[in-house]
């Protein structure tokens, strides 16, 4: 069984992220967990991968896989990396849990020639319905925590993220919205529809300050 097949059952979104990464590139995965995405990228795309992970267990799992992973978090440790150190910096399902999402996003765009960011969509109709009709903070499959114990402190919708990207001077090169089963929504849907139907969205971005941003 390949890594991709193992992944397919649990985190299909990681496969979608992996598809955005060019072969043989240099990648930093921020919040890399047990290193499955990095291993997938290394084995199937010959990627030179590095990770940042907060949990002891995750770091130990990564080190045991032979991955290079630093124990730390997006808020505290991205500042230590030099500019343009990586072809891609990946932040998967983590931006909403950072203390300073805007600063984190700026670091991603500074450290990597491209950033790949996936965010859970707080604008999904189920979320909206729970707030509107039940008057309760939403609990869904992709946002499974109650308000009092959630690590997610900065929720955003797909539309909010697009606005933030514009604000920090980033260009979105590619984007895809996924449904609850991790399948991409049909491209004919408008962004307005994504914001209502997307369970999460994945963005490939680069900073506009780069004159030579074409192709990597």
């Amino acid at each position, binding site marked *: 069984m390949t890594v991709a097949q193992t992944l397919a059952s649990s985190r299909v979104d990681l496969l979608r992220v992996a598809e955005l990464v060019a072969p043989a590139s240099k990648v930093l995965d921020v919040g890399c967990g047990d290193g499955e995405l990095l291993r997938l990228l290394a084995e199937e795309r010959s990627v030179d991968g590095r990770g940042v992970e907060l949990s002891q267990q995750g770091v130990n799992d*990564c*080190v*045991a896989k032979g*991955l*290079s992973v630093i124990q*730390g978090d997006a808020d505290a440790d991205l500042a230590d990396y*030099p500019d343009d*150190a990586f072809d891609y910096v990946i932040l998967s399902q983590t931006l909403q849990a950072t203390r300073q999402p805007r600063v984190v996003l700026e670091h991603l765009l500074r450290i990597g020639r491209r950033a790949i960011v996936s965010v859970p969509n707080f604008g999904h109709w189920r979320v909206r319905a729970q707030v509107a009709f039940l008057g309760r903070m939403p609990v869904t499959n992709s946002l499974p925590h109650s308000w009092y114990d959630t690590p997610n402190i900065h929720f955003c919708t797909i539309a909010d993220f697009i606005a933030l990207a514009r604000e920090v001077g980033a260009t979105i090169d590619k984007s895809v919205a996924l449904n609850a089963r991790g399948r991409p929504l049909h491209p004919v849907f408008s962004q307005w529809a994504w914001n209502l139907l997307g369970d999460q969205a994945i963005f490939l971005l680069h900073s506009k300050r780069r004159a030579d941003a074409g192709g990597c």
Partner: protein
Amino acid sequence: MGDIGALLNGAAAQSVSPDSLTLRLGPGSPLRMDSGASLAPLTIAYQTYGALNAAKSNALLICHALSGDQHVANPHPLTGRPGWWDTMVGPGRPFDTDRFFVICSNVIGGCMGSTGPASINPETHEPYGLDFPIVTVADMVRAQALLIDHLGIDTLLCVAGGSMGGMQVLQWAATYPDRVFAALPIATATRHSSQNIAFHEVGRQAIMADPDWRGGRYLVEGTRPGKGLAVARMAAHITYLSDSALHRKFGRNLQDRAARTFSFDADFQVESYLRHQGAIFVERFDPNSYLYMTRAMDYFDLAADYGGSLAGAFKGTRTRFCVVSFTSDWLFPTSDSRAIVRALNAGGASVSFVEIETDRGHDAFLLDVPDFIDTTKGFIDAAARARGVD
């Protein structure tokens, strides 16, 4: 000068005839030292465990700390106690002696058989004492490289060590990047902090204030500055622990008594414990050697050797690193390890960093801390796989 042999006991005797393998180099191949001195003849005392494979690709070098020695995983010849890294070295352990060839040598300036201040100075036929040249971490590593050459090993699968041992690991990686496949610096720093130099100075002054130290000539004069060395060890030992570990272990408990004695006896368990630590250290360590070891650490500043740029020390390195720190280590705090990681990242190196949660202070690297052992095993096994070692 009398019979030097009769004057030497404990550690000093090991300086002359160690219970170890030895590499002896004659006057024709002196060790060039940072101070400008040349050291010859030179003895390097070492232990090995496991077997070197045919490709000579499975060698792990362990670098010992300030008060350590080469007896990593065998009973200590003087104290009879288990090896200082018994938790890490052995069959099935991270330094798996069924798979790897594990080497540890006593550092130059040490007192367990490698040439040091208790060794005989060929010019005077007396122990060197303070005539022994000042040793640096780079000197220690240069001597180890001679041993590795002697063993016919080109590239070490991994160089590992904690504290002063970690300094040697960093020095190895900077000086011989092509000879170090993987590096595991633990609870260490690229330079000794002002606070750490200060603690060392307290220890040195304690030794020198002992009237039996005799300007470092105690072996010739037949005295033993044991009290000074014991005080130095007691002070240092506190820095290896943490407030909470000491409190958990001893609290304010009294030692073998129901009430305070209104005297300066060791009323408290923690006092009794420290006195014991001081006393047993004196049995196995040479006071002058302690001066030299502490000095070597004080002088360590890797960036200074590379034009002030730590990143320069590791630029373009292909060595894979795993840097480890412990949350309660205030002697070599996590911020020191993060500085190493930043420099390695800036140099584009492959680096992992783990901060192990424990309340056991700096000494955690010597203790049975499961997360630490798991990390180490994972890193070494992955390095072995990457190098094609079975």
